[in-house]
């Protein structure tokens, strides 16, 4: 695995460089907004990456909660299978909101099930907790990028930095939820902290669909979706957007990898220090 890291880092650096070049040079200039529209190529991929990381945090938290209880573990496994099957069948049987493709709903369902089983197979109980911390922290970083680049786009286009619109407010609430999650983990020394944090993460994810679907459900000032929501986008712009998303996904993967290793190392050191404390004369009473 150690050999893959530098290779992936080089690939990611190349993708990020090309993504930047594509956003600045290859993507056509938008007619009404002008060059400031190019912020979209960093803002949207960062938002998608943050959502994905928060979803991984949710799955890892669920697994951390259910893993010690065999019945809950089996139940969660079947719920994950049910979500995949229900999305595949439901997408083609039930009417969907305008612009939502049945294929994308089915793919999302399959992806949810696949992610659940991949995490279940490759992470131990402690591993799922470390993964939850990792994805929450990196997710907050990406969500911060979204909250900073959004107003920088809004100022020249809307004439204001911020408005208390549903999409913007729910994104800010999402950021605050995960910041509170990280603060809970950082400052609580109780043995129950991972369980409490996992429970908070489960509720935290409820805000993600609200953020994502707010522009479908409510009348908001935020632009309507250009993909999967009935909108349209120039094919070159779409390609540039997807290249940047791929680049940010690779970058997020590398950062998560490093952060996960750091978390596991920290736990090993803490365990060793605790053992050392016990073995010291007068350590056990």
């Amino acid at each position, binding site marked *: 695995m150690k050999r893959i890291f530098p290779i992936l880092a080089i690939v990611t650096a190349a993708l990020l460089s090309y993504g*930047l070049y594509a956003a600045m040079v290859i993507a056509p200039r938008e007619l009404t907004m002008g*060059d*400031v529209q*190019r*912020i979209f190529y*960093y*803002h949207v991929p*960062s938002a998608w990456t943050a959502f994905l990381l928060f979803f991984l945090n949710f799955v890892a938290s669920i697994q951390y909660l259910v893993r010690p209880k065999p019945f809950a573990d089996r139940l969660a496994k079947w719920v994950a299978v049910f979500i995949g099957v229900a999305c595949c069948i439901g997408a083609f049987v039930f009417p969907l909101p305008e612009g939502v493709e049945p294929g994308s709903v089915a793919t999302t369902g399959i992806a949810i099930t696949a992610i659940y089983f991949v995490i279940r197979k490759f992470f131990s109980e402690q591993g799922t907790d470390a993964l939850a911390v990792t994805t929450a922290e*990196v997710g907050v*970083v990406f969500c*911060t*990028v979204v909250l*900073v*680049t959004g107003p*920088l*786009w809004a*100022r*020249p286009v809307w004439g204001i930095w911020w408005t208390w619109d549903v999409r913007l407010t729910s994104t800010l609430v999402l950021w605050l939820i995960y910041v509170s999650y990280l603060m809970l983990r950082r400052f609580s020394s109780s043995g129950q902290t991972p369980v409490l944090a996992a429970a908070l993460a489960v509720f935290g994810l409820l805000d993600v669909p609200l953020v994502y679907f707010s522009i479908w459900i409510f009348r908001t000032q935020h632009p309507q979706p250009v993909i999967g929501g009935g909108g349209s986008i120039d094919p070159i712009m779409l390609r540039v957007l997807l290249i940047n998303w791929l680049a940010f996904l690779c*970058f997020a993967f590398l*950062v998560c990898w*490093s*952060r996960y290793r*750091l978390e596991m*190392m*920290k736990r090993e*050191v803490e365990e*060793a*220090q605790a053992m*050392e404390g016990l*073995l*010291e004369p007068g350590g056990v009473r």
Partner: protein
Amino acid sequence: MNFLYAAYAATWIIHIGYLTTLVRRYARLKKEVDEMRRPGRG
């Protein structure tokens, strides 16, 4: 155009800032490990 440059710069400042904290945490942890491994301890 200034807003565009500001947004791109802010993105990378946030990411590089976070990577810097990760590097510092690694260094601190490594120091702790080295201290634990020091002969004559324990």
